[in-house]
């Protein structure tokens, strides 16, 4: 049961995490995958379908950068719509986590 809750929670905030990550600087696919895997423990493979969807929704856009060794890298950067969505989702997350913390009686 804990597992189930864990999965559901992560699903909910996955997009928020990607948006936040990209708001700092542009990343290429591999970087997004490994960073998210490290920080919230999702499988690296899931990032690609997610990026595809965010691209379709107009939250991110891509550009290619030649790399010295190997194939060129596909970088993702936030669009204006992506920034707006990030703002809204951060807002929602803050009020949600505050409410839950209050219920749980944790103080930080």
């Amino acid at each position, binding site marked *: 049961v804990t*597992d189930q809750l*864990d*999965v559901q929670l*992560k*699903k909910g905030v*996955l997009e928020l995490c990607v948006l936040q990550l990209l708001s700092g600087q542009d990343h290429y*696919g*591999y970087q997004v*995958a490994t960073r998210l*895997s490290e920080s919230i*423990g*999702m*499988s*690296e*493979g*899931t990032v*690609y*379908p997610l990026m*595809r*969807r965010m691209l*379709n929704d107009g939250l991110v856009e891509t550009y290619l950068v030649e790399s010295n*060794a*190997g*194939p060129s*890298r*596909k970088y993702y950067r936030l669009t204006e719509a992506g920034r707006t969505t990030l703002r809204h989702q951060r807002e929602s997350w803050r009020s949600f986590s505050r409410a839950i913390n209050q219920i749980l009686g944790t103080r930080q």
Partner: protein
Amino acid sequence: MSAGRDNFLASLRAGLQGLPPRTVEEVLGEYAVHFDEGASANRSDEEIARALGNPATLAEELRVEMQIEQWEARRTPGSAISTIYRVAGLGVLNAALLFVVGPIVVLLGAFMLILVVALLWASVWLVVAADSLTLPGGMTATLLASAGSIFAAISLAALLALGVTGLVNALARYARLHYRHLPNSNRQGNQS
């Protein structure tokens, strides 16, 4: 090249069978690059494959995502049916939804469709048979009645289309929330 990498890419390719070849190559290319990047970070192919997760589940998720894309780009009846079919095949809908609500919705839709056809038929019949009917109100009343059933049929059809669109959109949202592939882990590595 190694077994971990080859197996992963082969399973992914098998799972994506039937999609446009260009799309398949595009997706496989992305994962191949992922392996290359991992290799230059000194990770073994087996380790990378494990971290990526189950390729069969991943392929399934990608297919649903692409079907939803297609539905969002072109909302045709055919695309609606494929979307419903794909989402149902994903195995995330619960049994009650699938076996109780599903048939009720289908029956309701079929009933509305029959009603639309019947109304259209009635409107034609009213005009064709007008002479032998001698309805009160004469020809004008008959024509008005005929036009009335045509408009009733059109509005009913529009209602049906709205209903189906709403339903498929809801299914798409539901499917996206319930992809099973998310958890990273070893738990998931050996299911197929």
